[in-house]
C-alpha cells in the first residue's frame, strides 16, 4: 500500500509514516491492535491522499500543522493534520472537519478539564453537540434516532473524537484512561441540535461562546451561526412521558431522573445537567408559555433530594458554600444554580427525552465552527476522494 501517515505522532504533533503490506482493513487493524491503538473496530487507512482530501474539508487557509489544542494527559499537540488522520481512520467525510476541529478546540479548553475527564474511573465521555449551519453542512442528524446509529456524520465524528483522545491525548485504557467499566458513549457520542423544532432557538445562543483565543465572546454580540458544544458526561438517561399535556408533569419525570444518588451531582454541586428534550415535550412546554430558562428554573426547583440523605451518602462533598447551610430535613437541589441546567432539543416524533448527567469536575465549552469558504449553503460540501485513492 502507499505510505500512510501514522498516528504514533510525537508530542510535537509530527505524524510519522509507516508502510504495511496491503491496505486491507484486517492488516490495518492487526497493526493497530499490536500497538495498542484504535478503538477495536476496523478503520480506514489514512493514506496521504485521503488525509489531504480530509484537510480540504477545512476549505484551505491556515497551516495543517498549526496547533489547535494541547490535549492531556500526554500533552499531545492536536493539529489539523493529526485531526484529519484520525478522521480518516474513523470514516469521516471531509465536510465534517470544521466541526471536528471545533470539538478538539473545545476539548483543549482549561475549563473542560480534559486531564480529569481522561484520567477518572468514571465512565464519562465527551458529548459533541453540533449547532446551526455546521450541522446541515456536515450532514449531522438532530432528528429521529439522533443519539443512535445510522448517520455517518454523528457516528464518525464521535468516533474520531475518541480516536483523537486515544492517539493524541494518550487516553487509552490502562494508561491514560482509568475508567472502571468504560461505557458505550466512549465509542462515539455526537449529536446535532434539532434547531428546526426547537421553540427556543439554539442552545448556543444562551451560553458563553468561547473564541479561538479562549476568551468569552461579547455577550451582546450576534449569536454564532455555527457552533459546537462539548459536555463531558454520562450516556443519556431516558425520560418517557407519553401522556402529559402540561409542562410540569413532563418535567417532574425529568427532575426525577436528575435526582439520583448514583451520579456525581450529589457530591459535586457545580456540575451541569444537559437535558435533551424531544420536540414534542419541548412544544408542550413552549405552547404553555414556558421559556428555556423557565424549564431550567423549574427543574432546579424539582430535582432535589433530602439534604440529609445526600450528606449521608457522600462524606466528601464539593458543594457551593450556601448548600452546606441547607438543613438535613429540607430538600437539596442537585446542582447549585439553574444556569447549570442546559436545555436543548433533539430527536424526532415520539415522547422520549433524556438527561445527560455530568462527570462533575468539568464545565461544558461552546466554540464557534470556523466558516468554510468551500461550503456555501447552495454548494455541495467537500466529499471523499475518488474510489481507489
Amino acid at each position, binding site marked *: 500500500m502507499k505510505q500512510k501517515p501514522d498516528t504514533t505522532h510525537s508530542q510535537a504533533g509530527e505524524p510519522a509514516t509507516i508502510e504495511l503490506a496491503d491496505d486491507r482493513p484486517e492488516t490495518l487493524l492487526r497493526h493497530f491492535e499490536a500497538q495498542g491503538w484504535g478503538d477495536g473496530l476496523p478503520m480506514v487507512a489514512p493514506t496521504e491522499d485521503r488525509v489531504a482530501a480530509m484537510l480540504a474539508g477545512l476549505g484551505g487557509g491556515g497551516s495543517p500543522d498549526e496547533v489547535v489544542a494541547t490535549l492531556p*494527559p500526554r*500533552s499531545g499537540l492536536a493539529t489539523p493534520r493529526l485531526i484529519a488522520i484520525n478522521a480518516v481512520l474513523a470514516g469521516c467525510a471531509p465536510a465534517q472537519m470544521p466541526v471536528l476541529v471545533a470539538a478538539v478546540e473545545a476539548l483543549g479548553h482549561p475549563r473542560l478539564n480534559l486531564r480529569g475527564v481522561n484520567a477518572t474511573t468514571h465512565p464519562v465521555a465527551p458529548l459533541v453537540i453540533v449547532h446551526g449551519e455546521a450541522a446541515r453542512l456536515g450532514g449531522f442528524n438532530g432528528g429521529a434516532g439522533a443519539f443512535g446509529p445510522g448517520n455517518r456524520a454523528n457516528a464518525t465524528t464521535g468516533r474520531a473524537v475518541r480516536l483523537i483522545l486515544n492517539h493524541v491525548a*494518550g487516553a487509552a485504557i*490502562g*494508561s*491514560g484512561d*482509568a475508567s472502571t467499566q468504560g461505557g458505550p458513549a466512549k465509542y462515539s457520542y455526537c449529536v446535532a441540535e434539532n434547531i428546526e423544532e426547537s421553540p427556543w432557538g439554539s442552545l448556543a445562543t444562551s451560553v458563553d461562546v468561547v473564541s479561538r483565543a479562549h476568551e468569552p465572546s461579547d455577550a451582546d454580540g450576534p449569536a454564532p451561526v455555527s457552533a459546537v458544544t462539548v459536555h463531558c458526561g454520562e450516556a443519556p438517561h431516558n425520560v418517557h412521558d407519553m401522556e402529559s399535556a402540561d409542562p410540569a408533569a413532563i418535567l417532574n419525570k425529568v427532575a426525577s431522573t436528575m435526582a439520583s444518588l448514583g451520579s456525581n451531582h450529589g457530591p459535586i454541586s457545580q456540575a451541569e445537567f444537559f437535558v435533551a428534550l424531544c420536540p414534542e415535550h419541548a412544544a408542550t412546554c413552549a405552547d404553555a408559555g414556558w421559556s428555556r430558562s423557565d424549564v431550567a428554573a423549574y427543574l432546579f426547583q424539582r430535582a432535589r433530594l433530602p439534604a440529609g440523605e445526600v450528606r449521608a451518602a457522600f462524606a466528601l462533598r464539593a458543594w457551593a458554600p450556601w448548600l452546606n447551610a441547607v438543613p438535613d430535613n429540607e430538600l437539596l437541589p442537585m446542582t447549585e444554580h439553574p444556569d447549570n441546567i442546559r436545555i436543548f432539543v433533539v430527536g424526532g416524533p415520539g415522547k422520549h427525552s433524556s438527561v445527560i448527567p455530568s462527570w462533575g469536575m468539568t464545565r461544558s465549552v461552546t466554540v464557534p465552527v470556523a466558516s468554510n469558504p468551500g461550503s456555501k449553503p447552495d454548494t455541495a460540501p467537500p466529499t471523499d476522494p475518488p474510489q481507489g485513492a
Partner: protein
Amino acid sequence: MARQGVPAVALVTTAFWPQGDFVARSVGMPDIPRVELPHPVAGTGTANMQQVANSVVGEVIAALSPASQ
C-alpha cells in the same frame, strides 16, 4: 506544584500504578516522588485508612524531604 518547588508526593494505589507511570512520563517528570498504597483504599473505612496512613507515613515524610525533591 513540584515544578514550582513545592515539596510534593503522589499517593497512588497499586491498581493505578501503571496510570501513574504514564502520567508521570507524559508530563516529563518520570521520577516525581510517589508512594504506593494498597488497593482499594476508598470505601474501606476509617480504621483501615488510618492503618494504611500509619504504614506509609514514613515513606511520605522521606519523599517530602529535601534529598528526595
